[in-house]
């Protein structure tokens, strides 16, 4: 279920009779309600209220705050509680629309309320939603934005449930904007196929701008199954923090997640691991700061763009290509193209999972679209090779062409070991180049956006 919130604005007009006054005063409320959950009429939704309260001649508080309980069916009540300031006094407005099926219109638009100051009643009145002028903007103003994860660190929690023959990965790639160096941290748990105890291992690799990449491995150590993240000796991945050492390297990095989670594979495959593997990013983008010590000195990193990713599955693919490209301006392109090891599936061309996070939206909307298209027709295609590989495809009125170049001098070859003991080789570069061309159909294909990344793309190609 997509975690979406609800956002809407509402304006109400009415009158109030303040204690000690003999006449009513006009009142106007301009409110914005923000709920962390989807507004479902048969449920009770709690929302935060912010907005402006105006009482003619007495109050104009643009920073009113409160809460809204929306329950038109379950409780037949829409309750507003709003604190605001009237001439230095802190007042509380408490009122609710009482929904009646016999008078749906009136009961949904009339809000009788009482004003309190320190629990004492100091006024009362009625507000009305102006149907004639307000309904259109009210309905058009509804938004259902994705909500920030309630606990961004929850994606770091280990998925492995003790089943033999599984592998689980926490990896982070980043580019230091000051030096142009790329960094790759790989943390992996392998539960061998034969039931041997699971072990944790990994490596740290740095891709200097002006030199060959270097790396060092840590582990293996027995897997202790921490509740949050990854632990192998001193090397840890915890929410917001990466620490550890491997050979000459020692690192202490903080991670600030930016943006919502991004599921490269179908979202359901992360919750229910039915596919051979699933890949996702706890946050589409992240910023890293900290220090990396190596044999030659120390690298201080400040706000380096990058991302962490998670993999859980049965093992590595027969052949794969991966790209993480921070396109700038908050946009991210994530690609995994892979040929499965499973019998039957291994005869298919690479299945492409392409996610373009742009302007707060992900294209294509469904991850399955790029991999299988419409029963195979219209699927995205990958041409995997080295030093250059390509992906292209079309979904809806847009098409994309991605070309990735992994310079041989900035590519590191490392061996992977699957849970069944078989090996694979990956060729990884955190200083890859990429060109992304996005076009939109409008009578003909017209360029919509083009990104060129020089030495800042993170890419990998693997095979056996």
């Amino acid at each position: 279920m997509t975690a979406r919130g609800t956002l809407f604005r509402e304006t109400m007009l009415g009158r109030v009779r303040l204690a000690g006054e003999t006449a009513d005063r006009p009142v106007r409320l301009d409110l914005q309600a923000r709920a962390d959950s989807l507004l479902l009429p048969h449920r009770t939704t709690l929302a935060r209220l912010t907005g402006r309260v105006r009482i003619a001649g007495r109050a104009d508080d643009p920073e009113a705050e409160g809460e809204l309980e929306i329950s038109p069916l379950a409780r037949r009540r829409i309750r507003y509680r709003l604190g605001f300031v009237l001439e230095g006094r802190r007042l509380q407005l408490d009122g609710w629309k009482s929904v009646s099926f016999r008078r749906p219109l009136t009961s949904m638009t009339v809000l009788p309320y009482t004003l309190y100051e320190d629990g004492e009643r100091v006024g009362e009145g009625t507000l009305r939603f102006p149907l004639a002028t307000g309904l259109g903007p009210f309905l058009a103003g509804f938004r259902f934005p994705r909500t920030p994860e309630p606990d961004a660190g929850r994606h770091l929690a280990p998925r492995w449930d003790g089943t033999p023959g599984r592998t689980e990965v926490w990896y982070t790639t980043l580019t230091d904007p000051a030096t142009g160096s790329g960094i790759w941290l790989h943390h992996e748990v392998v539960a061998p196929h034969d039931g041997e105890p699971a072990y944790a291992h990994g490596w740290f690799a740095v891709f200097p701008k002006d030199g060959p990449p270097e790396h060092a491995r840590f582990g293996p150590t027995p897997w202790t199954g921490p509740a949050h993240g990854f632990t192998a000796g001193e090397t840890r991945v915890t929410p917001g923090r990466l620490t550890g050492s491997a050979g000459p390297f020692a690192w202490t990095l903080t991670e600030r997640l930016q943006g919502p989670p991004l599921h490269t594979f179908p979202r359901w495959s992360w919750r229910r691991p039915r596919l051979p593997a699933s890949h996702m990013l706890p946050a589409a983008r992240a910023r890293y700061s900290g220090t990396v010590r190596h044999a030659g000195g120390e690298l201080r990193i400040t706000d380096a763009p990058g991302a962490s990713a998670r993999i859980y599955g049965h093992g590595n693919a027969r052949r794969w290509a991966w790209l993480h490209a921070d396109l700038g301006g908050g946009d991210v392109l994530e690609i995994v193209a892979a040929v499965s090891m499973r019998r039957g599936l291994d005869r298919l061309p690479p299945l492409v999972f392409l996610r373009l996070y742009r302007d707060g939206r992900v294209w294509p909307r469904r991850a399955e679209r790029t991999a299988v298209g419409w029963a195979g027709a219209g699927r995205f295609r990958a041409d995997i090779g080295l030093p250059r590989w390509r992906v292209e495809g079309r979904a809806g009125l847009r098409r994309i062409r991605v070309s990735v170049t992994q310079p041989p001098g900035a590519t590191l070859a490392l061996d992977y070991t699957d849970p069944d003991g078989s090996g694979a080789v990956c060729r990884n570069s955190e200083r890859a180049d990429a060109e992304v061309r996005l076009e939109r159909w409008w009578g003909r294909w017209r360029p919509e956006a083009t990104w060129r990344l020089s030495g800042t793309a993170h890419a990998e190609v693997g095979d056996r």
Partner: protein
Amino acid sequence: MTRTPRSLTGLAAAFLADDGTADWTKAVPRRAAALLTAMPAPARAAVHGAAAAIDAYAVARTGRRLASLGAAERERVMTSLTAHRALLPLLDALKVPLLLAAGTERMLHRAPPAPVSAPEDPPLDCTPSSDWPTRSTADAVVVGSGAGGAMAARTLAAAGLSVVVVEEGAHHSTASFGRRAPLDRFLDLYRDGGATIAVGNPPLVLPVGRAVGGTTVVNSGTCYRTPGPVVDRWLSRYGFAAAEDFGGHLDEVERALRVAPQPLDVLGGNGLLALAGAEALGWTAAPLRRNAPGCRGSCQCVVGCPTGAKQSVQLSVLPDACAAGARIVTHARVRRILTDRDGPAGPRAAGVLARRPDGSELEILSPLVVVAAGALHTPPLLRRSGLGGHPRLGHNLSVHPAISVAGRFGHPVTGRQNVLQSVGVEQLRADGILIEATAAPPGMSSFVLPGVGRELRGELERTERLATLGAMIADRPSGRVLGRDRPLPRYGLAARDADRLLRAQRAMGRLLFAAGAEEVLTGVARLPRARTPAQLEALLDRVSVRDLHVSAFHPTGTVAAGSDPEQAPADPEGRLRGVHGVLVADGSVLPGCPEVNPQLSIMAAALAVTRRFVARTG
């Protein structure tokens, strides 16, 4: 100004043999018309229809309507009517509103009540619903301010909760009682003009009060402790856990109401004759325990004590509740209990929706709702609120069926001072029969004088010589309350209870003769009088329960508490089953008939239910 129908004018003149010799008879039709307007529409239509029918009979017989006839001709018409024995019950039913009006007018013309000095009432925090905000909140809402509601409000407010009591009726001060005629107060203080009818065989009149203080404003002030065997039965048979330590709760209620035996000084002739008769027969009898210290014998308990002696709950318990912070909203009829139905643990009370007299609505949100609307009105309220799903809700209605017998003495019985309900004769209590000497204000007795025309007028002129006894019986719970918008009580008198009523009638006749009565008026239309005990015995042998004028009081048991979830709509602690946050704290929560006047029982039960709630929630 109420227009008086011509047929009603003629009917009053015929029934009261208005020959123009007395002034008071002239005002009776107008007052009767005013009384009828307060009655429920079916009762009003029935009276008007019967009046029109009798008028039509007069036209058929004489060519003129009753109002146009002379006194002698009217008398002849009525005599020919009463010759039809089948019509006697109908004529008796018509007599009730006319006697109410006639009694009041006669009293006003003969001896206008002297103004009484009333002490100032203890302060109450009452707000009319028109001044109460449309939206408000509280920790607890109590529906009804009668015996149960007042006690619940006091207990909850003392525990520190902010309590709002919602009352449909108005607040009447003691001083206002002193300023107004009894019948005017009667119309204000009773629901349906006192003509709440329980349909059944026989149909019963079941008067209930409607005011701040509920029926305690208009009861007789008799305060019986719940008998021990009844409490034991509630505990052992029904599992009514709130009845544990009931004695302690009764003690506390008695202290709050200042209950004490009625002193003999203002007891009045009625009570003294009952004591004398009991003594002559060797029966157990004593002045009743009442909540009226300093009673001055105004004999107006049933229309609000004008001296403030009777400690109705609006003078005793509600002031304590208000002192602890409770507030009372008057003129607000609760339409629904609001419930939140989407909670993880099932439906939960969220407050009440009440209607003002002008039709507008107000809501009070509160996590606790205490229902104390009375045994007749609580079941419809729960049904309206969608909480009436229990199959036994509204069943188990006990009502204390009651009859009256009067004795005529050679000397005036009622003087200037009388306690309305003064003496209890407990000889037959073990058999479920409780006899109480009851002298109501003119016309307000449940005893119906015999005859029509000159005979009735003669009886009216001699009412001062009448002593009246009433008997109520412990009945089987053979009634039920139907209805959603308004209660529709149905009651079928059980055969055992019919026998008890006939025994009670016989016993009261014996008691009156033993006290020296010259004549006993049986209250039976076709066999109205007996001059000797032997004649009475012979006469009562021919009486069946269908001949009796049965009234009923003290409805209880319609949302009975008990441990059996299939039999009891409320759990042993008085919480309504099927919803969280609803307590039942009125007569309806009692699992069975209390067998005595129930005010103390209801208040002790309300105290127990709410105190247990407070203890449980900390």
